[in-house]
């Protein structure tokens, strides 16, 4: 087994030299894979820092909580507001110290610990060819014929599924459970995560899939496919923001600070749209790639603070489960 690990190590031999300082950043899988923004961000940051930036991937918060103060991470990237309360309670994170005035989010951001780097909104994506008359509001979706089929994600196993139940709660409040009962016949199925859902949608199994307002951008930019659209609802869309933070006990505080500062630079922000297929958190619309500038985006943004989200989570998931189990 030693030989095996050794051989595996050779295959992935790291180029790090012993004397360059290493900055370890925990990131989600999709972020740091070669199809995500990770590699170009790594190259750009290393060009400016004389250091070795290493992304370690996996379930970011889960790992940090497991590791506690013994973590190797200097910073993390890719946390989500709906679970940051748990992250904050660990006391493992330090204030980011960045000037948030640069942020261009659709809402006011004052958090001292968690720094946004990109955002989008939950949205139902549809194919304009198979569903030419897509519902144009949540109410229309509820009233639509039951032959419309939706694929959504389970809020108990996926962050986007959790955002969906919070979205419905934000739009309908106490009526949420009856809204779910109305939606139930239209829900073709519920999947474990986003990948399974989106796979079903691209296979043509369902008319609409729960995804993000930025999903059509991939099809437009990478595939020249204009048929995928997000249905924009005037009731508002739930805001999904991804965050970075510095680990309080880091051995490399300066490098970690430099990395957080780098997140707000135009270099980093320009890598976000076509790297992470999301909207940059600190870049004016006029500097977005054209396809992103033209994306239909919601005017009204719905959002729960981390405290509200934490308080509502169990209740909304239970409403959802009850309504769909009938």
């Amino acid at each position, binding site marked *: 087994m030693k030989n095996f690990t050794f051989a595996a190590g050779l295959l992935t031999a790291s180029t790090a030299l012993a004397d360059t300082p290493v900055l370890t950043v925990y990131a989600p899988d*999709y972020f740091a894979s070669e*199809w995500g923004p990770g590699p170009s961000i790594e190259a750009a940051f290393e060009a400016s820092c004389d250091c070795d930036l290493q992304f370690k*991937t996996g379930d970011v918060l889960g790992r940090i909580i497991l590791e506690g103060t013994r973590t190797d991470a200097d910073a993390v990237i890719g946390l989500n507001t709906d679970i940051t309360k748990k992250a904050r309670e660990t006391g493992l994170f330090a204030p980011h110290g960045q000037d948030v005035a640069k942020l261009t989010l659709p809402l006011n951001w004052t958090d001292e610990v968690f720094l946004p780097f990109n955002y989008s909104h939950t949205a139902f994506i549809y194919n304009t060819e198979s569903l030419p008359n897509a519902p144009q509001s949540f109410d229309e979706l509820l009233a639509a014929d039951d032959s419309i089929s939706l694929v959504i994600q389970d809020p108990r196993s996926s962050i986007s599924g959790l955002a969906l139940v919070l979205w419905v709660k934000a739009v309908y409040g106490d009526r949420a459970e009856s809204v779910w009962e109305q939606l139930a016949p239209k829900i073709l199925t519920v999947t474990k995560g986003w990948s399974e859902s989106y796979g079903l949608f691209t296979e043509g199994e369902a008319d609409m899939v729960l995804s993000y307002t930025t999903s059509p951008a991939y099809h437009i930019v990478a595939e020249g496919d204009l048929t995928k659209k997000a249905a924009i609802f005037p009731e508002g869309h739930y805001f999904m923001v991804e965050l970075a933070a510095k680990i309080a006990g880091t051995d490399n505080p300066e490098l970690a600070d430099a990395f957080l500062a780098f997140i707000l630079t135009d270099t980093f922000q320009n890598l976000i749209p076509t790297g992470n297929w999301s909207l940059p958190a600190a870049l004016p619309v006029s500097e977005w790639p054209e396809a992103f500038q033209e994306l239909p985006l919601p005017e009204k943004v719905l959002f729960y603070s981390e405290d509200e989200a934490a308080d509502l989570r169990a209740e909304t998931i239970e409403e959802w489960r009850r309504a769909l189990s009938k």
Partner: protein
Amino acid sequence: MAPRVVQIITGAALAAFVIAPLMAVWLNAGSSARFGPAEWAALRFTLMQAALSAALSVLLAIPLARALARSRFWGRDVTIMLLGAPFILPVLVAVLGLIAVFGQNGLLNDGLHALGFEPLSIYGLQGVLLAHVFFNLPLATRMILLGWMSLPAERIRLGQSLGLGAMARFYLIEWPMIRRILPSAFAVIFVICLSSFAVALTLGGGPKATTIELAIYQAFRFEFDFATAALLGLVQLVLSVTAAALALWLAGHDRLGIGLDRPAPLALRPLLQRLLDMVVIGCAMVFLVLPLALLCIKGAGGLADLGTPVWFAALRSIALALGSTALCLCFALPLATRWGEVIATLGIAVSPLVLGTGLFLIVRPYVNPFDVALGVTLCVNALMSLPFALRILRPEVQAVEQNFSRLSSALGLGLWGRFRWVMLPRLRRPLGFAAGLTAALSMGDLGVIALFGDAERATLPLKLYQLMGSYRMEQAAAAAVVLLLLSLSLFWLFDRMGRYGAQD
């Protein structure tokens, strides 16, 4: 076959490898566990679908294995190999394949529509069962087929010379063999289906189809509620071990005597019977292979765009699979006893999430878990395949023990001599099959690696998920084709080695 001490040590090591992570999770729990109405509902659904899935898979496997055992036709080997294909695919890929056939826009519904019938829905309990039969029918078939192959030719000849009719032949010769194999085939499949999660949810249609594994996932993912996760993990473990022990208790002994390892004679059978066998085999092939064929057609286009990282991941997966196979067989041979089989069930009984998290907690004080991610995955994969390997090996090992131990002692054969001259020649076929299955299962696994997997050390299944996560559905389909072909090749190679020079 191995001295008792080795057996006990191996068994204890195995149990420790499963129990220790569970304990580690439990000890790290800050709160107390909850087991509310939602968990009870999940428990009920889990048991119900696992029992139905296992029963269906095993029942359908009997006529299929029988037809395969009696028929000789061109391409029979390939057929038997392809039958193993669904089992080794990552869940996500297999589900997409099934949907291409049975989904809303699948071939089946297109056909029904053209004929003017109402479409059928794959989503619901029927979908869960369909998928679980798709995964497990091949496994059950191969297990039962091995049983048929192991029927001594002498017994069949005796039956023929006594002029037994079809009914009598089935009851006197075949049924005792089936009775011996069926309960543990049922138990293995039951245990696999217990921990089903993504399939049950996706094809189950929603929260009605919640399994315990999802509750474990939720407890970890959002609540970081280790106590509940450990409790649910324990529930799953107890269910699995109970099922395995029950199966052992139910399985009778086969005491009809031994043969001289000659291939069974092929009786001349009426044309109608031969036709019927071909229909059974044909239907199974269409059911099992069509979804995969459609996947291949879809994925072929993206093959050229895959790029080196995916191919490196493929190499890594192959190395991992070979390592897991070696380790698995090292465990399997000493544990090929009745109780060894129950202990081995622990491997698939414990949730990968609990196992992975527990191992993480255990190794963390000594090494960086990232650095040993592939090693840990290798061990876990070996462990997960062990119940299958044992299920395949144990009856053969025991039959050899029972039938040849007195002769071996009389001849004064030592441990190595027994292994080399008595065991190995008789175990080649099951060893090859077990190795092939382990290698293929390990190729397709996305359990623990998803927890620890570095982008730079990703395996092929992880790459596949990354591709999907970046919207690259076409390349993901191509990666799935590579995965399928590699898994099948490994399976074929090992299986072939086991049968090289064999007389059929």
